């Protein structure tokens, strides 16, 4: 038996009730995060990556949202479906979270110092003086120059990159064992993005903090992650170590994403191959594979039945949800097709 994971998510289902009907945003997601691991969840808008982590944090508005199935265990304890009081016990303390838009995620009427100190007072019962002192140390740790002066400033006095650092500082206040970063660099320039990614990697390496990084950018994944889940239409279509995902892509969607991006390394001037069409409507998800309608290799069965997860026997963490991995399926150019074994996970 392997040691228990830091976070284990099993068969998570999330739905939203809207005027137009029920949106099945997350349709059976399984993944786990080990202590000190950086896991990237990558996918396009609407694939359910943000909803997945928001449901872990208990910050999905309910209603209209509803967790209709599954479990998520943090250090062996269930965190789904907790009441507000119980959720507050681990939120911020065990799991920290940073968001895409630091400008709207921080309170504009409180100083940065007061916002960081608040976390410490609530969770650790620190005195105001002690909390301010730790807040200052946190700003220094996240490399914010002139920390003492910055503590007394308001968010509007910060640049986007500095605000993201301040939000990281706040999320680190209680030394969480897991940090969820939802598109932390999407709003930032590439030079500032490099600074923030370096900072996250440094914190992970030094403090052994696990990170779930939500992003749509494969290049950010390549720079930061150890393991990757690729999501499409509310499901994980491929997961594995970062090298397996990039160099042994076993799902046509992963392959399609790579071919749609310009590369400066190999085949520099190869024409981009866009993925035709757009993701399916999750009001009524397709009966078969969610990607079948856009997949250049779709077979009849792909439209009829959702494929099981096929696991690579030589790298058991590498798995793909695709009928092309079934025994006897046609060989497809560019796709990694070892003999994968159907897992009993559905």
């Amino acid at each position, binding site marked *: 038996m392997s040691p228990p994971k830091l976070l284990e998510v099993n068969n998570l289902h999330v739905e939203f009730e809207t005027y137009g009907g029920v949106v099945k945003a997350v349709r059976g997601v399984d993944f786990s995060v080990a202590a000190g691991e950086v896991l990237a969840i990558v996918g396009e808008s609407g694939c359910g990556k943000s909803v997945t982590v928001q449901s872990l944090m208990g910050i999905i508005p309910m209603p209209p949202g509803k967790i209709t199935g599954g479990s998520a265990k943090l250090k062996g304890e269930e965190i789904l479906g907790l009441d507000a009081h119980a959720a507050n016990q681990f939120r911020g303390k065990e799991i920290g979270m940073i968001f895409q838009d630091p400008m709207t995620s921080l309170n504009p009427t409180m100083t940065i110092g007061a916002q960081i100190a608040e976390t410490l007072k609530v969770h650790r019962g620190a005195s105001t003086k002690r909390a301010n002192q730790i807040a200052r140390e946190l700003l220094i740790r996240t490399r914010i120059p002139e920390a003492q002066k910055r503590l007394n400033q308001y968010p509007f006095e910060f640049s986007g990159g500095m605000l993201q650092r301040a939000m990281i500082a706040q999320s680190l206040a209680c030394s969480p064992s897991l940090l969820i970063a939802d598109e932390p660099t999407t709003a930032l320039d590439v030079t500032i993005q490099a600074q923030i990614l370096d900072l996250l990697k440094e914190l992970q390496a030094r403090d052994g903090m696990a990170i779930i990084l939500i992003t749509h950018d494969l290049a950010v994944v390549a720079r930061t992650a150890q393991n990757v889940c690729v999501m499409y239409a509310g499901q994980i279509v491929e997961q594995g170590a970062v090298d397996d995902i990039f160099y042994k892509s076993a799902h046509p969607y992963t392959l399609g994403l790579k071919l749609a*991006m310009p590369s400066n390394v190999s085949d520099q001037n190869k024409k981009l191959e866009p993925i035709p069409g757009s993701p399916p409507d999750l009001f009524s998800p397709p009966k078969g594979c969610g990607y079948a309608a856009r997949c250049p290799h779709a077979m009849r069965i792909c439209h009829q039945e959702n494929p099981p997860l096929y696991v690579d026997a030589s790298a058991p963490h590498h798995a793909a949800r695709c009928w092309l991995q079934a025994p006897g399926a046609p060989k497809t150019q560019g796709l990694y097709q070892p003999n994968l074994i159907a897992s009993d996970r559905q």
Partner: protein
Amino acid sequence: MIKTVNLKKHFHIGRNQTLHALDGISLTIAENEILGLVGESGSGKSTFGKTLIGLHERTAGDAFFEGLPLPQKYTAKDHLRYSTDIQMIFQDPYASLNPRMTVLDIIGEGLALKGIPRSDIQEEVAFWLRRVGLHPDHMSRFPHEFSGGQRQRIGIARAMIIKPKFVVCDEPISALDVSVQAQVVNLLEDLKDSLGLTLLFIAHDLSMVRYISDRMAVMYLGTLVESGPSDAVFFEPKHPYTRLLIQSNPEADPILERTRPSAALTGEITSPINMGPGCRFVDRCPEAMPQCKSETPHPRLIGSDHEVACHLYHEA
């Protein structure tokens, strides 16, 4: 095709302060060429596009289109006159389409202004909807019925239906998903080839700009630091800022990312208020010399068509 000489745009922001958004940009764009303009937010790249086509009045300098000077301040008449040759595609496909107009009215507005009869407009709009990968039936719909990628195609059809010669694309793909970005980029390339268009492609995605552009120009705080053939600028960057910018650009290649050193640029772009002489990049430059603080570097030709504004380099 397009030429600017020492183009300046200053904004007065009160209390005797001046924001130097563009400080002497001299740039040429050849016919049927895509020029990619990159830089961080606040570098002035959007202001350049807007000033060039008269959406901002320029403070000083000259701009030429097909050898003829463009007016410094556009009158309503000028806008109408130049809009047949010069068009723009905007960044935000949600904000740049009027939500109360149908797709037919949005795409056909330019033709209607020219006094073309409605039945001809309908035919032309149907053609362009098909050309950008939408369906002619979509004509009677409103923008809210479309996804981001589809809206961007509507914006492209609106610009192209006039048969312009020059199009400014201001971050046309940054609001789109990866798979849809490729659709839009390929469409722009096709249109450029089939219509013989000239494009100014403003973006912050370096890999995409290198891919689509023939030439590339890098801006920093209202000045042009480097310009040249895209591959030369990307693979052999000369200006310290360009070098650091390209090293910060992540590649979708984990082994490469693990082996190359992190080269995060320290500090942040400042705002160009009341600038004195000297290089704009001097405070963040790892190779700054005393000369850089006092003397403004001017663009120097260092290779075929490759210009750098940096005291480290001398005219070839």
